[in-house]
């Protein structure tokens, strides 16, 4: 990166990444806000919920952790459950080994803040032509992380004061994944993997149920994709 004024550089970095993150912003503002409100109703005020979002950033696990914070103190269980709920990050890391190579100092933050939505954008969306790849990844990561932390804080502070009915607004995240799935589907060589992902997830959902589906789905996907490798290569 050239030695421009840091404020200008950061402004540019966030501006170029912003459009890609708008759907995430919508979803995170709703879900982060709801998280702050929920924590507050359990007696954990904005300081606690924000601290959790800052350090343990990860939407679904933070919701699970609410249950853990309102029962007998058991940090080992909390640790193991976080590993299991977040096991899908292992796949994200594998998929980003090449993209996150040689990024220097920012790499640590990119890995720290890697979530479903950031992974989806970084792995699917091409950065604008005039933007440094590293700046785009960093901008997306900072913005998504920031939306979540900010929304948590506001939710914790304001409680249940939102003036309109937001039921269903979090569908924005589902819609984002549908769109990014279609973007992946455009490339012919991705279709086998995309179909595998859908089928394995549905099979795991039917057999193991909504709360246990992720890890069986991942194992099934890995087996089929590795089996398909020979077919594709030969």
């Amino acid at each position: 990166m050239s030695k421009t004024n840091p404020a200008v550089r950061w402004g540019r970095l966030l501006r170029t990444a912003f459009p890609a993150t708008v759907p995430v912003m919508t979803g995170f503002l709703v879900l982060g806000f709801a998280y702050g409100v929920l924590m507050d109703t359990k007696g954990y005020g904005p300081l606690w919920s924000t601290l959790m979002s800052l350090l343990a950033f990860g939407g679904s696990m933070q919701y699970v952790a609410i249950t853990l914070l309102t029962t007998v103190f058991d940090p080992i269980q909390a640790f193991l459950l976080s590993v299991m709920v977040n096991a899908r990050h292992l796949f994200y890391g594998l998929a980003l080994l090449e993209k996150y190579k040689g990024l220097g100092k920012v790499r640590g933050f990119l890995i720290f803040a890697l979530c479903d939505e950031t992974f989806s954008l970084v792995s699917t969306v091409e950065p604008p032509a005039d933007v440094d790849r590293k700046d785009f990844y960093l901008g997306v990561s900072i913005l998504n992380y920031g939306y979540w932390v900010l929304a948590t804080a506001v939710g914790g502070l304001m409680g249940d004061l939102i003036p309109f009915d937001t039921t269903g607004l979090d569908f924005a995240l589902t819609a984002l994944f549908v769109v990014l799935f279609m973007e992946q589907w455009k490339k012919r060589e991705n279709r086998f993997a995309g179909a595998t992902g859908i089928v394995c997830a549905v099979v795991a959902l039917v057999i193991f149920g909504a709360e246990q589906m992720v890890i069986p789905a991942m194992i099934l996907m890995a087996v089929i994709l590795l089996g398909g490798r020979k077919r594709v290569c030969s």
Partner: protein
Amino acid sequence: MFLTPVQTIIMILAVMAGTQLTRWLPFILFPENKKPPEVVLYLGKVLPAAVMGLLVVYCLRNTNFLQAPHGVPEVLAVAAVAALHWWKGNVLVSIAGGTALYMLLVQVIFA
């Protein structure tokens, strides 16, 4: 608050440690300066598309097709997103349109 402040901090750190482990492990196992095995590179190439499929299903995992409204809002809204995206190819239009339709369905039509 159910736990003491110290217990709460320990719980936050435990959740942080578990989550961070899943994020760092691949990068620790396959460091930057070494070329990962071919199998890993292959997985890296095919996983994004597969994971996107998994995430779509994961987002819809709590949809109950057996009880009213039988997943109709979800199916219609996903179809709307797909149709808009196929037609216009604009990410924001597809997402905003599908989400607006979904909100209308769950708040007004199937409320």
